[in-house]
C-alpha cells in the first residue's frame, strides 16, 4: 500500500514551531480559582510571545476541551479573544474526549495540507476545578417549562411534581453514555480480561513518576512549561507539575487499595491518571511558511489515524486499532519508530495497548498478517506520562506532541509514534518526524 502522507514534505506539510503548556496541577490546587478559558488564554498568549512572531501571521486557532465550559462553549474563539490575538482571528472548537488537542493538531495540519491555512494555533484546556454542575433532568425540565410559562400559577405548577432528590445538583460523570461504565471500571475490566497483573500496572506507574521526576530535575520541561501567576492577587504562581512523586516506590504503590473493585480489582489511584487542571498549545505552520519566516521547526506530522472500537468491548483499546493504520499511512513499521509516546489514562490501559501491539491474536482480529511488534520499554514515555504528569483531558494531546518532539531532539532521533485513547472506544495515533 502506498503511503498517505499529510501534506508535501518541504511545502504543505505541517510542522510544529513551538509548543507550550501550563504546569499540570491537581484539581483544586494552585489553579483552583481559574477556568479552562483562563488557562487556555494564558498558554496561548505566552506561546505567541515566546515564538516572537507577528500575531497577524496566525490565520486560525483550533482549541478544545473534553468537558465543555457552558458559559463559553465556543472555547477556541474565546481563547483567541482572551489572549489578545487579533480580533479577526478565525477559530473553531473541537472535541474528541481525551484526544481533543490531537484532533486540534490534525485539523490544522489537514487544513495546511489542503492549502487553506498557513499558520495556526492548536491546543486544548481543561479545568477539573471548574466543571459544570448540572441540575437533575426533572428539575431542568421544570425550569424550562417555568421559563416559558406566562402566568405565575402556571410557573409554579411547573415545579409541582419535583421530589427532594431532584433538587440536588449533579456533577458530570466520567462515565460512558452508552454503557454507563466509568473510565475506571472500564480499565478494571480490561485489566481482568487481558490478565494485566497489579505489579505490571504499578511498574508502569513507577516508571512514569521516575522518568517525569528525572526530566524535571534535568530541565527537560523548563522550556515546555510556562509559569502561570494566578489572578487576581498574583501572589501564587503555578510553576511545576505537582502530581509527580520523585520518591514513590513499588512498595508504596502496592499499598494502595483498588478503587473501582475493592474486592478483586487492581486499578488504584496510584496507577491511574488523576483529575488535573492545565492547558497546552502548539504553534503549527506549513513547512514552507515556517522556512520563509526563518523559523526552525521542532518536527513535522507525517501521518495520523483515528479508529474506534465498541465501547462495550474494551473501551480504552483504541490506540491498538489506530496505530497500525497510522503506520501504514506513514509507510512505516514499528521498527522505523524511535520513540513511543502513549497517553497513560490507566496503567492497565497502557499494558493492554502494548499487549495488543504484540499479539498475533489481536493482529488476526484486525485482519493483519502480523502484529505490530513489541515496544521497547526504554523507548516508551521517556520523560514520563499522564499518570505522573497529570491529565487535563483537553490538553494532554498537545502535551504529548511537544514532549515527543523534544525527546527526539534530545536523543537526536527522528521518528515518534504518539497514541491517545479516548472515551467512546476512540483511539488516535500520530507519526511525527524531525525536519
Amino acid at each position: 500500500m502506498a503511503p498517505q502522507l499529510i501534506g508535501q514534505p518541504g511545502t504543505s506539510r505541517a510542522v510544529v514551531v513551538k509548543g507550550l503548556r501550563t504546569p499540570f496541577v491537581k484539581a483544586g490546587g494552585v489553579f483552583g480559582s481559574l477556568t479552562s478559558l483562563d488557562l487556555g488564554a494564558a498558554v496561548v498568549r505566552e506561546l505567541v510571545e515566546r515564538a516572537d512572531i507577528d500575531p497577524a501571521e496566525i490565520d486560525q486557532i483550533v482549541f478544545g476541551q473534553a468537558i465543555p465550559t457552558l458559559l463559553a462553549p465556543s472555547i477556541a474563539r474565546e481563547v483567541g479573544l482572551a489572549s489578545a490575538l487579533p480580533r479577526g482571528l478565525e477559530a473553531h472548537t473541537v472535541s474528541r474526549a481525551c484526544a481533543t488537542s490531537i484532533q486540534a493538531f490534525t485539523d490544522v495540519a489537514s487544513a495546511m495540507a489542503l492549502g487553506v491555512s498557513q499558520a495556526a494555533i492548536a491546543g486544548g484546556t481543561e479545568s477539573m476545578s471548574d466543571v459544570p454542575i448540572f441540575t437533575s433532568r426533572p428539575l431542568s425540565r421544570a425550569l424550562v417549562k417555568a421559563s416559558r410559562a406566562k402566568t405565575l400559577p402556571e410557573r409554579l405548577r411547573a415545579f409541582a411534581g419535583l421530589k427532594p432528590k431532584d433538587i440536588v445538583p449533579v456533577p458530570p460523570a466520567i462515565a460512558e453514555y452508552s454503557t454507563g461504565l466509568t473510565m475506571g471500571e472500564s480499565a478494571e475490566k480490561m485489566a481482568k480480561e487481558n490478565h494485566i497483573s497489579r505489579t505490571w500496572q504499578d511498574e508502569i506507574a513507577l516508571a512514569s513518576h521516575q522518568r517525569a521526576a528525572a526530566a524535571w530535575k534535568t530541565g527537560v520541561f523548563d522550556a515546555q512549561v510556562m509559569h502561570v501567576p494566578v489572578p487576581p492577587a498574583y501572589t501564587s504562581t503555578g510553576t511545576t507539575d505537582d502530581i509527580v512523586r520523585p520518591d514513590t516506590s513499588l512498595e508504596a504503590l502496592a499499598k494502595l487499595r483498588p478503587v473501582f473493585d475493592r474486592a478483586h480489582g487492581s486499578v488504584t489511584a496510584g496507577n491511574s491518571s488523576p483529575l488535573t487542571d492545565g492547558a497546552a498549545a502548539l504553534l503549527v505552520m506549513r513547512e514552507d511558511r515556517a522556512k520563509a519566516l526563518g523559523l526552525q521547526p521542532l518536527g513535522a506530522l507525517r501521518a495520523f489515524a483515528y479508529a474506534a472500537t465498541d465501547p462495550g468491548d474494551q473501551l480504552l483499546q483504541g490506540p491498538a486499532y489506530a496505530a497500525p493504520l497510522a503506520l501504514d499511512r506513514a509507510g512505516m513499521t514499528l521498527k522505523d519508530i524511535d520513540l513511543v509516546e502513549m497517553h497513560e489514562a490507566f496503567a492497565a490501559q497502557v499494558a493492554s495497548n502494548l499487549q495488543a501491539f504484540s499479539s498475533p491474536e489481536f493482529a488476526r482480529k484486525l485482519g493483519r498478517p502480523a502484529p505490530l511488534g513489541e515496544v521497547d520499554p526504554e523507548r516508551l514515555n521517556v520523560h514520563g506520562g499522564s499518570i505522573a504528569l497529570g491529565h487535563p483531558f483537553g490538553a494532554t494531546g498537545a502535551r504529548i506532541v511537544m514532549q515527543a518532539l523534544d525527546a527526539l531532539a534530545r536523543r537526536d532521533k527522528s521518528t515518534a509514534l504518539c497514541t491517545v485513547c479516548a472515551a467512546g472506544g476512540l483511539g488516535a495515533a500520530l507519526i511525527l518526524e524531525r525536519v
Partner: protein
Amino acid sequence: MASFRTEMRGDVAVVTFDLPGEPVNTLSPAVGAEFSEELERLGRDEAVKTVVFTSAKQDFVVGADVKWLGSLRSAADGERASRDGQQGFDRLAAFPKPVVAAIHGACLGGGLEWALACRSRVASDAPRTQLGLPEVQLGLLPGAGGTQRLPRLIGAQAALDLILTGRSVRASKARKLGLVDEVVPPSILVDVAVERARALASGTDTPPPRRSPRETFTRAALEGNPLGRRLLFAEARKQLLRKSGGHYPAPERTLEVVREGLEKGMEAGLRAEARAFGELLMTEVSARLRELFFATTALKKDTGVDGAAKARPVRKVSVLGGGLMGGGIAFVTTEKAELPVRIKERDDSSVGRALAHVRGLLDQRVRRRRLDRRGMEKVLARVTATTDLSGFHRADVVIEAVFEDLTLKRRLLAEVEAATGEDCIFASNTSSIPIGRLAEGARRPGNVIGMHYFSPVEKMPLLEVITHGGTDPSVVATCVELGKKQGKTVIVVRDGPGFYTSRILAPYLNEAAHLLLEGADIAAVDHALRAYGFPVGPFQLLDEVGIDVGEKVSHVLHDAFGERMAPPATMATLAKEGRLGRKAKKGFYRYDVDGKPVDTSVYASLPGGATRVPFSEDELRERPVLLFLNEAVRCLEEGILRSARDGDIGAVFGLGFPPFRGGPFRALDAMGAAEAVRRLQHWQERKGARFEPAPLLRRMAERGERFHPDG
C-alpha cells in the same frame, strides 16, 4: 460659508452644525448670529413644525472659541458678549416650535448651554459623548445662561458639582441627573430626536420620569427653602476654599451667581452671570489658564522634533522592571495606548507584584465605573510578563524602569540590544542618569533616549523625553507619539544633569533647606509656598519623594553645576539619621499621628535647635521661587528646553507649579524681567552667588523683552 445645514424630514427641520474648515464646532458671535437668523427663518416657515439640532462633527459643540475670548479687551466687552450669548439662547428657549438637541460626542461649555436652551435633549450612548461645563478650568464661569439653566434643570447641588469642578459626565450619568431625556445608540440618535420633536409638537410626548422620593426630599430640604439653601452654599464655599486655597476667583463667583438666580429669579441671575463673566475674563488667573490651555493644545500637535522626522509605528512595548514605575508605565501602555506590553522582572514573585499592580489600577477604574469587568479583562490580556527576554524580539520600544544604577542600566541595554531588532528603541526612565552616558556603551546609540515619567505614572500628566546629541530624530518623534498615546503631556528636553524638572526643583529645595538652617520654621516655609500656589510645600514634597532621593539628586547637580547648586549639609545629616520621609514614616512631618504635624525632633539635628526664628512670609516664598525661576531661564538659555512654552508646561504638569501663574516664564513675564533681576540681585548681595541672575534674564531685562512676546 454657512455653518448650518437644514434638511427637512417631513415637518421636522434637522439643523446640522458644521463649522466650515474646522475639526470641531466652537461658538463665536458670528456663529450665534448665523444660528439666530436660521432660527428666525424656521420660525416663519409654516412647513416647519419642530426642529432638531445636531452636529456633523465627531463632537457636538466643544465650547466657545477660546481665541475669541482673548480678543475681548475689557470687562464691559466680556459682559456684553455674555449678554449677547444669553439673549441668543433665551430666544432659542422661547422659540414657539419645540427644539430637540441630538447630542453625540463632547457637549461642553457653550455647547451644553446651547443644548440646555433646547426643549429636550437626546444623547448617544457612545463613550465619546461627554457633557460638562469646564469654564472653571479657564478661570471663568458659564456665561451664556449655564449657571441659571443647569440648576433649574437638575437641582442646585448637582449643578454646582458640575460647574465648580468642570468635570464632564457620560450620557448614562447625564440621564440619571436629568440632564438629558433619553440615551440611544449613535446610529439612531437623529431618528429618535426627530420622533421626540414630533411628539413634543403634537403633545403626545411622555413626561420625564418622576424623581425618586429620596431625591425629591433632598432637593426640597436643601434647595427649596432659604435655610437649606444657605446650608448648601456655605458647605460648597467651604469645600472650594479648601481646594483652591483662595487663588481661583471663578468658583466663588459661580456660587454667588447661582445663588442670586435662585433667590432673585432668572433675569437677575443672568445679569449677575454676565457681570461675573466679564470681570473673570479680565483676571490674571483666567489669562494664565487660557495661555496654558493654548500651550497644551499646541503641544498636542508638536511632534517633538524641529525637522520632518516621522514617528515610527509602535506595535509592542516592553518594560524592564515592574515596580511602581514599571507597573505604572505598563498600565498606561495597555490602558491608554491600547498596546501589548511585556514586563520583565527578575523572579515569579516580582512578576506577580507587577501584574497585581496593573490589575489594582484597573480594579480602581472598575470601581469608579470607568470600565466594566469585561473591558478590564481585555486590557489585562494585553499585559504579559516574563523573567527572561523572551518575547522582546518584536518590541518596538523597550522602556527600562529599574534601579538608578548606570552599570546595571548599561548591562540591560546591551542585553536588550542583543535580543531585539535593529530599530528597537531603548528608553530609560531615569530621573538622574545622563542619557549620553548610557548611550556611550550602546551598539545603536541613535536608538537610546530618556523617557522620564513621574510617580505615580497613572496620575502624573507629564512625560519628559530626553535626547542626547546622537538620538535619531525619528526616535524622538516615536517616543513623543507613544507618550501622547499613553495620555501624557510630553515635552522634549536635551540631556543634561537633572534634565529640566529635577534641575529647577533642586535649587528651590536647597533654598528651603538654607532657610531651615537659618532658623525658619518648617510649617512656615511650607505654608508660604502653598500660599504661592504650590500644592505642597518643599518639606512635604521631600517627605514624599524621600529625603535620601532628594539628597542624591542634589549631589549629582552640585557636581555638575558647582557652588550655586551646593546643598546645605542638613539633608545628608537627616538622611544618615534614617530620616527618609514618608516611606520610613520619619521625615519633616510625623506619620504616626493624625493631622501630620511637624516632627519637631528634626530641629534637634539642626543648628539653633528648637528655637525658631521668625521670617517674613515674603522672604520664605521669594527666595526658593526666585531660584526656581532663574534656573528655568538657564535651562532655556542652554538649550535644555526647546521653548519657554515647554518650560511652563513642564513646571506646571511635572512639579505642580501653580497653574494660575501659567508657568515660570509666564510668571517672569508677569513680574517683568527687570524686577526679577532686581530681586535676585537683592538676595545675591545678602545670601551669595547662588542668586546671580541668569545671563539671559539680565539681557531680557536690559532690552525690556518678554519670554512670551504674545502676552
